[in-house]
């Protein structure tokens, strides 16, 4: 069964109340056509996981502006004034997570780990509500895994089995979200035949990918 689908087939996956992980860092490496579909779908009460809320007119930021995001789990909101405004009015819940911890939480979710101990955030407000564990005299926070219902990824090239390669700074959270989501949709700049990608250069194995759309 072919994984290559139309944008409409991809959009049909969106439902209210989903947890959606979206690749990208300040919208670089974000699948904008899939975000278009998410905005147009009108589905609501979403929890969005991503590095940041980018800009009002790009990437995840558009889901903040549209009001579809009820909650965002991100490391940074400073480039999108609407995120801060909606957080202050109480219309948007914002969970700020240190970037390395966010990456590791997604990886833990995707790798079947129950959590991990990190020194990051000890002694700061990040430790509120978390278990602190001391080993060999060093304090660590126990951080818990993150998973998503759907991941929306941007790839440079996908082969027809869903093997992915990324380009330059676009990789960021994409490969981690491929592991951490139950259903993985990829927007690829180019779709190539099976065998065209060097197995040693593949970053995300096709086994993790459910649908591929052409950017």
């Amino acid at each position, binding site marked *: 069964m072919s994984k290559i689908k139309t944008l409409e087939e991809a959009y049909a996956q969106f439902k209210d109340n989903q947890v959606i992980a979206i690749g990208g860092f300040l919208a670089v490496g974000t699948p904008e056509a899939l975000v278009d579909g998410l905005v147009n779908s009108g589905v609501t009460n979403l929890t969005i996981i991503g590095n940041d809320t980018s800009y009002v007119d790009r990437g995840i930021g558009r889901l903040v502006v549209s009001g579809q995001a009820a909650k965002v789990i991100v490391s940074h909101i400073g480039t999108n004034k609407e995120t801060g405004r909606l957080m202050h009015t109480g219309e948007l819940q914002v969970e700020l997570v240190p970037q390395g911890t966010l990456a590791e939480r997604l990886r833990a979710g995707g*790798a079947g780990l129950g959590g991990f101990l990190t020194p990051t955030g000890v002694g700061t407000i990040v430790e509120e509500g978390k278990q602190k564990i001391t080993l060999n005299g060093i304090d660590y926070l126990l951080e818990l895994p993150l998973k998503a219902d759907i991941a929306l990824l941007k790839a440079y090239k996908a082969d027809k089995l869903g093997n992915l390669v990324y380009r330059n700074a676009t990789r960021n959270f994409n490969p981690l979200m491929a592991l951490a989501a139950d259903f993985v949709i990829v927007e690829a700049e180019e779709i190539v035949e099976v*065998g065209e990608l060097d197995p040693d250069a593949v970053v995300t194995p096709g086994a993790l990918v459910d649908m591929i759309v052409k950017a």
Partner: protein
Amino acid sequence: MADTRERIVKRVAKFFKDGDLVNLGIGMPTMVANFIPPEINVMLQSENGFIGIGPSPEPGMEDKDTVNAGGAFVTILPGGACFDSAMSFALIRGGHVDATVLGALEVDEKGNLANWIVPGKMVPGMGGAMDLVVGAKQVIIAMEHNNKNGAPKILKNCTLPLTALGVVKWIVTELGVMEMTCDGIVLRELAPGVTVEEIQSKTEATLIIPDVIGTMED
């Protein structure tokens, strides 16, 4: 003996669905690859670091860099993907592997599995087995029904050190196919010519006998 093993692995191969990612253990489980129905596409993972195990190379065509987790020379199919051991076990532990097929020394009514150590005799190490059985969506045990001495391997309680607790889903032997359920081990299929009485007599655990029992096709 060869027929016994072939019967087992042929049946195991029928569990897979199109698009499945499967990890086959060393020994008899590896033979399952030869019987996957051609109409479905199953990807095989080698936990030493790739997806896309292909056929054994022709003699003289072996590639020193391309072996399976048992150290045997294999090939990588077009569309394969290589990764490091952390990613390999992220796939395994994270539930991305649809099924793993392994042998067993003992299995019990609670789905407990012992297949890595016989204290004082055989201490090879667990390799990837503990992660595989905890992480894979379905754990399929492919083994001969009784051990070399004719003693049962499907027990009320495992006696050997465990590989994991409550992980086994299916047991396929030359006598039949059994499914692990909350209530215990249900007999689903019998090999041709094998009776309920015979398989139960060779099994320490009490098998649950449903109204309908299928035939394990040859």
